[in-house]
């Protein structure tokens, strides 16, 4: 955006008050400090281009091997991580469970150890079970990035959502952010909550009572069951997808009723602040969570989120790899 220098120079762009990244893995936002989150966001800004096609190829990760291990389907996150690694000149491995020995009964830890033995420095892991990336971090020595573990966390999605808010509205602190939809089954909701609260935003979670666990208020968020009540107070609304694949049955009566009560449509948008920002982590069910004219309208930042996702993932890969280089240097 407008703040990005023509020739990003990462060594001089470092602000004096910025901390040094020390963590080997990126497993969740809950255990990051505000400073660590801001460090990633600042580094990501350096990689943001108005048009990603003009992103020049850099040599930061030359000789590094980045492996994508997606035990659960993904289009956007997987492509985004793969492209981020390639933009930084890393070598990449793409692992698909259907074409692997998992179906022959190999445990997923053994599968990951084999890929590590091929020389992987970084493993990007998506898994349907919460804690699966944490388990790999326990048993492997390469860096692990959580690309979504069940309903637990999706840290890079949380970071790109927050980066988009910061770019469009200039700040995060003091804003009111509504997370709308299936909170119970959403890893995006949890990463958003931890990241936004650490950066000083107010968070309201909103959805049908069956999809909003009451205990979530203990994290420091407000709960609402009525979108129309909270909409006039929100600076940002993040529209979460209904996780049909993770739900037990019978959590709400019908998709039609859901769309009536919680779908973001043009008429509802008129109740919102005039400069409201709409995010959606995707994939979206058009006509359910959001109508097409809203998804493609001026308030929506859906495509900017995708672009920012690439920048956030480049920043995370570079921070983790620089850390491992300097750690190796210290030992050698």
């Amino acid at each position: 955006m407008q703040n990005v220098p023509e020739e990003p120079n990462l060594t001089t762009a470092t602000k004096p008050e910025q901390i040094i990244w020390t963590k080997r893995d990126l497993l969740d936002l809950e255990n990051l400090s505000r400073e660590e989150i801001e460090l990633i966001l600042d580094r990501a800004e350096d990689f943001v281009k108005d048009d990603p096609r003009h992103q020049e190829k850099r040599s930061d990760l030359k000789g590094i091997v980045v492996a994508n291990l997606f035990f659960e389907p993904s289009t956007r996150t997987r492509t985004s991580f793969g492209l981020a690694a390639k933009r930084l000149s890393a070598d990449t491995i793409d692992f698909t469970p259907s074409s692997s020995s998992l179906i022959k009964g190999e445990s997923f830890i053994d599968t990951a150890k084999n890929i590590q033995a091929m020389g992987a420095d970084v493993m990007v892991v998506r898994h349907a079970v919460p804690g699966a990336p944490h388990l790999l971090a326990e048993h492997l020595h390469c860096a692990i990035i959580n690309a979504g573990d069940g309903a637990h966390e999706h840290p890079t999605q949380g970071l790109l959502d927050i980066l988009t808010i910061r770019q469009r509205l200039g700040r995060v602190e003091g804003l009111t952010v509504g997370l709308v939809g299936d909170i119970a089954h959403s890893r995006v909701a949890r990463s958003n909550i931890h990241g936004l609260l650490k950066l000083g935003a107010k968070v309201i979670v909103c959805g049908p009572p069956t999809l909003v666990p009451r205990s979530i208020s203990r994290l420091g968020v407000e709960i609402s069951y009525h979108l129309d009540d909270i909409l006039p107070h929100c600076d940002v609304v993040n529209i979460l997808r209904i996780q049909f694949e993770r739900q037990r049955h019978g959590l709400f009566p019908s998709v039609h009723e859901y769309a009536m009560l919680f779908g973001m449509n043009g008429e509802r948008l008129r109740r919102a602040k005039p400069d409201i920002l709409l995010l959606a982590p995707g994939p979206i069910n058009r006509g359910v969570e959001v109508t097409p004219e809203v998804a493609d309208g001026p308030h929506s930042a859906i495509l900017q989120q995708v672009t920012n996702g690439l920048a956030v993932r480049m920043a995370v890969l570079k921070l983790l790899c620089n850390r491992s280089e300097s750690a190796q240097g210290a030992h050698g």
Partner: protein
Amino acid sequence: MMVHRSSVPRLCAARSNNCLMFDKPVMNHCEDLELTKGGVMHEGFESMRLGLRGLPAAAEEIMVYRDLALAELTGGRLHVLHVSSAGSVELIRQARKRGVNVTAEVCTHHFTLTDECLRSFDSNFKMYPPLRTRDDVQAMIEGLKDGTIDAIVTDHAPHAPEKKMRELDQAPNGVIGLETLLPICIHSLIEPGHLTWPQLIEKLTINPARILGIDRGTLKPGADADVTIIDPNVEWTIDPEKFRSKSRNCPFANWKVRGRADTVIVGGVIR
């Protein structure tokens, strides 16, 4: 004695009646299987935070209540296995006051550990009933103190490391407890002053024998010489690698504890 998980009340009531003939209790693992389907840990704040499917306390309490009502209906004797929720303890306490013939037991981990342990995503904290909250742990201790809970058990469940070292929802339920039973009881019950030594020994020996209706658990003349000699003061660190048990799925690894069995005599023979 009958251990069962039947969900057909009429059948349970019949069994409860039938057991009267033998002076044996119906022993039930209280779990509403519909409510626990797919669950991994106690349902509450921690399961919400970790995104893991919950096993609600209600799944246990509904079955405890059902069995108490059936014991009351038939006059049969009920023993509730491994109680874990504060609500269950209270149901049993109230039933006993009404004269229902009921006894209960608790596992060492349920009066020592909470669901916060699962933040490590370590399957050595995965069992059923699951670890619950601090309030539940406190209720177990209160139940032991006022006699609502008669016995302390391990629910010893060995699993091979390769079975346990898996994604949390695929790892089997259960932990081992035989070799940590005594030091954990000392740590959680004797040292804080919740139970005296005689009370603890009663809950580990006399009461379990009485519940099962077997002639064991005493030192009276003529009884089988099944004796454990305890050194209550020896300090040691729990290291599952050194267990006699082949399994390592222990939730107390690396704990510094006090007290250990010094000598074990079974049927008069020193082991």
